[in-house]
């Protein structure tokens, strides 16, 4: 309890992590208040003003249908953030659980879990998504579940690889020797010691999830047009190389989001590690 509050305080003391948290906070605010803030509607089509470069009236320019890019970038924040966070959460929970079980118990549990993961790996993303769409119908929820399941193998493998190392550590053997059960050992000794690579993988996956959503919606399986999403906007801008603003601004939005997740992830990784924590604390003392 005291450890977690002090970790939180330390996180707030790291300028980098605070910058990341600030950017994420801003994104969340934009996502929630977007409809009230933006100057134009997401689908305010005005073909007479199509493909205009950035100007006083349209800061980020307009797209091929004359829609305001700024408004669409802001309004897309909600869907894009939601897709990335929810789908990665699904992947994280399932993948880490599988990886922990497979890596710690080895034997048949490992064999079964890893075969399941291999099968998932073998499925093309789209095929899997189409299968899920067949059951649930197209839409945001389907996209999130599909992307989530697609990323389970990555988390499972990253986790398992780290667990294989940690389970051989003398401190895990020491816990076995005092009679601790496997669940307790996984919870108190293994999981805390494999967080660093998982956090790194989470930051990476969040970015890929935004792009995966774009691919799905392009096939009509994700967010349904004309509702905006960053990935979709990036995708649509590809055909208009002269109108760079169509893809640069949604791309920038993805970049800032991913960077923010990365900064917070790095900060978290450091404050969760007692060794790094005391380095941070000693810096404060000076």
């Amino acid at each position: 309890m005291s450890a977690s509050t002090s970790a939180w305080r330390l996180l707030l003391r790291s300028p980098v992590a605070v910058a990341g948290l600030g950017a994420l906070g801003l994104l969340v605010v934009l996502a929630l208040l977007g409809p009230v803030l933006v100057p134009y509607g997401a689908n305010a089509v005005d073909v007479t003003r199509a493909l205009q470069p950035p100007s006083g009236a349209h800061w980020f320019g307009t797209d091929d249908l004359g829609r305001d890019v700024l408004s669409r970038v802001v309004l897309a924040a909600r869907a894009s953030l939601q897709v990335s966070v929810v789908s990665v959460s699904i992947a994280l929970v399932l993948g880490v659980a599988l990886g922990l079980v497979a890596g710690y118990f080895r034997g048949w549990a490992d064999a079964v879990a890893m075969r399941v993961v291999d099968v998932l790996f073998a499925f093309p993303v789209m095929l899997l998504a189409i299968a899920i769409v067949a059951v649930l119908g197209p839409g945001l929820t389907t996209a999130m579940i599909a992307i989530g399941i697609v990323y389970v193998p990555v988390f499972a493998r990253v986790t398992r690889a780290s667990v294989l190392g940690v389970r051989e550590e003398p401190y895990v053997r020491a816990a076995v020797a005092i009679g601790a059960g496997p669940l307790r050992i996984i919870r108190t000794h293994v999981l805390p010691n494999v967080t660093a690579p998982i956090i790194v993988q989470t930051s990476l996956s969040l970015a890929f999830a935004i792009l995966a959503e774009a691919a799905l919606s392009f096939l009509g399986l994700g967010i349904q047009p004309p509702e905006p999403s960053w990935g979709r906007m990036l995708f649509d801008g590809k055909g208009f190389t002269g109108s760079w603003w169509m893809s640069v601004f949604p791309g920038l939005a993805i970049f800032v989001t991913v960077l923010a997740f990365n900064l917070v992830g790095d900060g978290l990784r450091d404050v969760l590690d007692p060794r790094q924590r005391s380095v941070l604390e000693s810096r404060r003392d000076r």
Partner: protein
Amino acid sequence: MTPDDASTTDRPLLSVRDLSVRFPAGREGRVRRWVHAVEGVGFDVERGRTLGLVGESGSGKSTIGNALTGLVRATSGTVHLDGTDVLTARGRAARELRRRIAMVFQDPYASLDPRRSIGATIREPLDVHRLLASRAQRAARVAELLDLVGLPAQAAQRYPHELSGGQRQRVSIARALAADPDLIVLDEATASLDVSVQAQIMNLLRRLQRELGLTYLFISHDLAAVEHMSHRVVVMYLGRLMEQGERSGLYERPAHPYTQALMSAIPADDPAVERTRERILLSGELPSPVDPPSGCVFRTRCPLAIDACADHVPPVHLDVDHTAWCLRTDAALAGRAPR
């Protein structure tokens, strides 16, 4: 209270009989191959005393410690702790044995979880075995244990990387004591510490034994440390017993050629003595534990070996409490190797 209470006083706390541990080593054709890590080992540990288990790498000494604490499974043999069968226990009984046999590991850097505070580390046996009901009681016990091993109470809030090697090994000892065990297995517990710190830890262990009546199994490659710590000593080589006896008898009159070679390998303190003394140098290399020599496993390197050593190894009782598994104890004791 069990009906056979009367007998508990004179039976040894730990009794190991004919213990073997084998690990699979792949196949050769149709034949399954085994690493013979420990073969037919037996010894007793008396309550309140220290048994020293000494040998080089590959001797199987650490495997025995691991078998006692459930880290490896024994292939055959029996181990009794105060009458309870250690090897066949399952479920609750096995968990209770984990409480009664505690272990301190060699590497104080690696055997403490870097992410858990010292307090949480020492408390873990109490948590696992649900020993003290309230949080306050457990915290008090941790403070008491820290004091016992000579660490300040504030150490509970620290993390392993903030302590020195010696302090960490004190933490490991405190943790081993936490659940009030009957036997503590010390597996090379001082080997990776600096000389000056080794002495601190050995003094601490002996003080704790005096004050709390602890029973130790002291596993080490260091003959001098074993002599200092133990009441009784077992010498092992390639998974087998070589010699066993009370400390004074074994160290004053080592009767097995291997024990003699081990003692001879330790450099003398005085450089003048070291440069002139006669040493027994072992030839050759440790045989493979997958395919150990027949008869006496030491015979391939023994300066006194004769043909008969390939056939059998009799236990030779040199004294009431001193046994060597060797055909050539007479020659060894005479101190001369006929070529």
